[in-house]
């Protein structure tokens, strides 16, 4: 299993400025720490489910990886190369062919004035990949067919298509350049439940056929469980827990993950007795400009104690590919691995354990 992409120490901070005076004085009124120190790695052919509620930073990570948003700090390594500093259409030409994004809203991703053909062909045009019209057409049709749409859809306009069909077009548009890594940001959340399964199946089939790797971003833990090999749970810009999907769901070790799993809705009849006790947290996620000190979850954590208010826990390796950031699991952690064995990682600062690669 070779590693395809790794981010280390990723930070994305947005300054809050207001008004001309502040802008002139370059005086930020605060900082939104959307992503606040994240380490992630995805192996080739894997599906990593990135789960979190709104404000967790999961979408921002997706945007940083596809280079729509610039990171404030941290490193991104893709297929062995350091791509952190690349920016702008020229430098990113090659990167963009290999890393693509499936957007969330099929009604908004398609320009209402563009035909389907133009939408799917645009990546080829913009990157000069198929200069002859006939070539482009052929590739468009091939992409549409891979996404399960007949060729004659090419000449329709978006408003003639249903939500599920539009999302297939979006997928075709993401595939046409033959990427290796596809970031999918809530790809099915705006679709009817019965349509979702088809699209998910399509995405998994494409993984088989083309050896794709997915970063699957979603707020729906159960959905991540169904589709992902590994799940990472985020809260307020940091990873709280990461591990194999089944393990994270059946034996979560971080209290936030535990609460999330316990309230994840399931279509069980009330008297079936299968429903575990629910941990409904109080309050809502604080905003990313006012992140609590110490462990950022401590104000809402049902089992927080004094150390949690003061020190932020690192991700502790618990074996079997699972890591959780919580002082309560510190005693269960495996010994720290020698960073010299893991190439490409920065030397750990004290107290930070690099996440063990699977």
């Amino acid at each position, binding site marked *: 299993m070779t590693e395809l992409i790794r981010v280390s120490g990723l930070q994305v901070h947005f300054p809050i400025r207001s008004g001309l005076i502040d802008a002139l004085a370059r005086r930020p009124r605060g900082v939104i720490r959307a992503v606040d120190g994240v380490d992630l790695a995805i192996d080739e052919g894997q599906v990593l489910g990135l789960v979190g509620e709104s404000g967790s930073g999961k979408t921002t990570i997706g945007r940083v990886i*596809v*280079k*729509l948003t610039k990171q404030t700090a941290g490193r991104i390594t893709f297929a062995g190369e350091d791509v952190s500093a690349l920016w702008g*259409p020229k430098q*990113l*030409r090659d990167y*963009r062919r290999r890393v*693509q*994004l499936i*957007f*969330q*809203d099929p*009604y*908004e*991703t*398609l*320009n*209402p*004035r*563009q*035909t389907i*053909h133009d939408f799917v062909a*645009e*990546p080829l045009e*913009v*990157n000069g990949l198929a200069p*002859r*019209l*006939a070539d482009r*057409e*052929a590739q468009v*049709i091939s992409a549409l*067919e891979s996404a399960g749409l*007949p*060729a*004659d859809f*090419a*000449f329709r306009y978006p*408003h003639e298509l*249903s*939500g599920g069909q539009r999302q297939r077009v*979006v997928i075709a*548009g993401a595939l046409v*350049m033959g990427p290796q890594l596809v970031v999918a940001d809530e790809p099915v959340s705006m679709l009817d439940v019965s349509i979702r399964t088809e699209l998910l199946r399509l995405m998994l089939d494409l993984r088989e056929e083309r050896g794709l790797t997915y970063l699957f971003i979603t707020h729906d833990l159960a959905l991540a469980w169904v589709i992902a090999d590994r799940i990472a749970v985020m809260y307020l810009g940091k990873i709280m827990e990461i591990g194999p999907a089944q393990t994270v769901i059946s034996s979560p070790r971080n209290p936030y993950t535990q609460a999330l799993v316990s309230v994840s809705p399931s279509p069980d009849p009330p008297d079936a007795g299968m429903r575990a006790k629910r941990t409904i947290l109080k309050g809502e996620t604080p905003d990313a400009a006012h992140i609590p000190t110490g462990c950022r979850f401590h104000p809402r954590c049902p089992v927080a104690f004094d150390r949690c208010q003061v020190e932020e826990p690192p991700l502790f390796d618990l074996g079997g590919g699972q890591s959780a950031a919580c002082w309560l699991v510190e005693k269960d952690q495996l010994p720290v691995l020698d960073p010299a064995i893991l190439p490409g990682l920065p030397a750990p600062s004290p107290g930070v354990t690099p996440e063990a690669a699977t």
Partner: protein
Amino acid sequence: MTGSADFVPTGRSLRAERWRLRVRGAREFAGQFASRRDGLIGLAILSAFTLMALSPDLFVGAKETVVSATGTRLEPPSAAHILGADELGRDILNLTVHGARISMSIGLMATAITIVVGTSIGVAAGFLGSWTDSGLMRVTDFFLVLPTFVLAIVLAPVILDIIGPEAEFLGLRATLLVIVVVIGITSWATTARIIRSQTLSIRERMFVDRARVIGSGSGHIMRRHIFPNVVNLIVAQAVITFAAAVFIETSLAFIGLGDPFAPSWGQLLESAQSAGAPGLGAWWYIAPPATCVVLVVLSFTLVGNALDDILNPKAQVRR
């Protein structure tokens, strides 16, 4: 629609399909427009005036001059002269119809300048943001507050100097070209503001993000994604600007900045005033050109309303 089985990709078939799509789109549009009574009335009036502007001779013969005038001074309407005559005996109907060409040409050219300049600046400022936006917007603000008439009076000799008194373009002589330039200079700022505003909201939409993700540069995005989605607004603006331009030209000519040898409607009104027509009760001198201005502005408003509703993307059905 062709089935996928018999679809063979060649460049030619794509062009054919595109053409078919365009024709279908045009037919749909025509159908929608035909159902709008206000649009149709506006279009009818506009067509009439356009015809008059394009070939005035067909309607009333050659433009009358002092030499060919047959009426008596300020003759009231009669069988020979349906709308009476001016102070030089020229037939008012003749002059009015010929005036259409001048007024509307001025309107058209001024609108062209306004739209081209306004849209370019609006889209650039809205899309590129930060310093470009601030800089362009300060310039725009400056032009926004300039008073039209004062500017016209100040600029007229300056521009005349620049282009030379003998300049001629599309049948308009120097003085009228000045008016075109002045209207353009004072109108583009409003358009720029409006287009910039729309651009700001389009810029945040997901399909622009998608264009970025696949590697599009700013130019490509502005051309292929921003511009087609502001076309509605541009059309609406063009219609408003045209109407305003005709009206401004009329006013400028009325205060004496027009070309006495090119009787636009405004010029006719100016002549009427100098000849003392209001005091003498010669309504036939004033009413025709004034009515034409009103009708043209009205027709544009009606057409503009209809177009606005049809082209409004919110009217599209979302499943």
